[in-house]
């Protein structure tokens, strides 16, 4: 009991003491603050005056430099032609008494070495400021990405489903590593063919930029064939259309081409006159077929075979500004690991040609690939298949209507296509409309008609709506 009583009394006393102290403190502090407020006001006033003085001095330095730069003996600092004419106007525009109104003769009398010293000091200050800002920026890595959801009488990627669907949540990470070292990671949460959400490191590449015309990447990247696969990535908000052409979809979404490669990639561009030549050369693990889907062998493969390829493009100028044309080729050796051992192997050789006309009004893309495949184990010989698409879009403010025709004619006697779930021949026509809700989100509506023409014969119509954002 005694203990209990003590417990009750002690806190009471403590609280009383605390309240008393608080009241006392508040009274004292309020009294002191009343005296301080005048002092603080005076200090603020002095600070304002100091800032004003700093601004005036900065302006003075700039004016002196500008005037010295105009003087013939000290014309070391180049200016734009337009700006050269602007400097006298500066003085004219400045109110009397301001540094800018200083007579040019006075500036001419300034010694060149003084101007140089001023320039050096200013350069140093600028560099220090930039450096400080840089360090502050480097403290964190910004998180950006894309997401999309949809609804339709079919799922845009897996047509066996219908209703509402979650597309993907794509995180894009580009840590800053230095002036020449590059890194790029794309972590994608997406719904697979089984309806479950999976996580995929879609791209993980680390590179070094030797110059503007040469960057080498190592890791997992989008295989640089054709135009679409490297112009558009997983962020659907960027693309005009609601989805990629079916045959160049990503592997786990029904694509029949190796959209990803794990290996090395040299890429760059170089001016040739007013035009620009772009190039890509790559080598990596050859892919395999597993579960009826192409797999890019992230961990390497067991037989050491490779995919090798290249892409050469040209960006036109002048009247053809916005037009890019190019050719590409790759060769790989694909094992079908679903088949009984020994796994059938196919040498896949693809030749591509593409053209893209991308202006403020038009976005037109055409891409065509020929596959010249060799059965390396089944003795069925050589098979030739092809696939291509043409897409036209017109940007009319926030609306972009588009149309696309695509087709894939795949030899079913070719094990490479026969072993893939989506390796059947097809053609699809689509009409769509993209509406930019704002700068970061868009609504897309697509009506499509797909015909399957060999493995199974049939067709289905789709009405799809997608809401895509970036952040």
């Amino acid at each position, binding site marked *: 009991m005694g203990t209990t009583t003590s417990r009750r009394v002690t806190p009471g006393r403590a609280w009383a003491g*605390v309240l008393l102290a608080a009241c006392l403190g508040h009274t004292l502090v309020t009294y002191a603050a009343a005296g301080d407020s005048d002092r*603080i006001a005076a200090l603020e006033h002095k600070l304002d005056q100091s*800032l004003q003085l700093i601004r005036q001095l900065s*302006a003075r330095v700039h004016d002196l430099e500008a005037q010295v730069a105009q003087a013939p003996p000290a014309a070391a600092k180049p200016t*734009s032609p337009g*700006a050269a004419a602007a400097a006298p106007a*500066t003085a004219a525009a400045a109110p009397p008494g301001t540094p800018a109104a200083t007579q040019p003769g006075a500036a001419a009398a300034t010694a060149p070495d003084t101007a140089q010293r001023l320039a050096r000091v200013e350069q140093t200050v600028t560099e220090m400021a930039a450096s400080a800002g840089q360090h502050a920026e480097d403290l964190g890595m910004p998180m*950006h990405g894309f997401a999309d959801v949809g609804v339709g009488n079919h799922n845009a990627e897996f047509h066996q489903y219908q209703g509402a669907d979650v597309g993907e949540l794509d995180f894009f990470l580009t840590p800053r590593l230095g002036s020449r070292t590059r890194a790029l990671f794309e972590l994608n949460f997406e719904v697979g063919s089984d309806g479950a959400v999976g996580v995929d490191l879609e791209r993980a590449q680390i590179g070094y930029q030797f110059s503007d015309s040469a960057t080498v990447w190592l890791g997992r990247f989008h295989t640089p064939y054709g135009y679409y696969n490297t112009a558009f990535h997983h962020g659907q908000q960027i693309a005009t259309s609601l989805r990629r052409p079916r045959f160049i979809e990503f592997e786990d979404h029904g694509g029949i081409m190796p959209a990803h490669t794990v290996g090395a990639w040299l890429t760059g561009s170089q001016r040739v006159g007013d035009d620009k030549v772009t190039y890509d050369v790559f080598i990596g693990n050859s892919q395999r077929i597993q579960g009826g889907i192409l797999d890019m062998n992230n961990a390497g493969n067991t037989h050491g075979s490779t995919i090798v390829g290249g892409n050469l493009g040209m960006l036109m100028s002048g009247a053809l*500004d916005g037009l890019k044309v190019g050719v590409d080729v790759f060769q790989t050796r694909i094992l079908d690991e679903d088949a009984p051992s020994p796994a059938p192997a196919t040498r896949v050789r693809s030749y591509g040609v593409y053209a893209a006309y991308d202006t403020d009004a038009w976005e037109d893309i055409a891409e065509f690939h020929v596959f010249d495949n060799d059965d390396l184990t089944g003795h069925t010989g050589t098979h030739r298949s092809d696939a291509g698409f043409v897409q036209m879009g017109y940007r009319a403010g926030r609306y972009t209507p588009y149309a696309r025709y695509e087709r894939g004619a795949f030899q079913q006697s070719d094990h490479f296509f026969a072993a893939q779930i989506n390796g059947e021949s097809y053609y699809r026509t689509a009409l769509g409309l993209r509406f930019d809700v704002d700068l970061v989100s868009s609504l897309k509506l697509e009506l499509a008609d797909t015909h399957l023409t060999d493995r199974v014969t049939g067709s289905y119509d789709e009405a799809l709506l997608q809401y895509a954002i970036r952040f």
Partner: protein
Amino acid sequence: MQTGHRGSFDTHCRRWRRPRKRLRSAGSLLVALQLLIAALPGVWPTRVWASAPQLAGLPAAWRDDRGQPFDLRTMRGHAVVLTMAYATCHRVCPVTMRRLQQMQREFDRRGTSAEFLVIGYDPDHDDAQAWRQYRETRHLMRDNWHFLIGTRTAVEQTARQLGFEFWKYDEHVMHDTRILYFDERGRLVETRQAAGYETTPR
């Protein structure tokens, strides 16, 4: 067994009563401290207003679309309209450019003048020739329009100072339609978004 458990639990609680009591006293002290701190008018840091961006505070050395050096300091004495863009942008930048042209027409109608600066987001891809081509195809050839190329550091520093938020997604640059207006003394006096035509006095 249950009783035994309860008993041991009680014992356990009792064991912890004293420290709790001490903690309560410490808590009281903390509350008191908080009260004192709250009562002090001068304890909270004075809100420091970041100084408004000024042209004079930006990196000075740029190149224009003719490949010539361009000194930003020579803009002093001129009203300046400034934005950032990239040459292969076909969805957002055209909106900004149309807005700039609209502003230019408005200045012409009023008989006032301004220098228009367009700073490239992506110096890796947008060189002088790219901007030259951009100007020619879009008929943006007036002498008071300057398309500027800087180092990546200068571009990032400028964007940071002026509040242009951007990030790169491969060859795409994610950005907005911000337009800034500086007066003849190089002070920022107005910020606009070309897309929504909102105007925000500084």
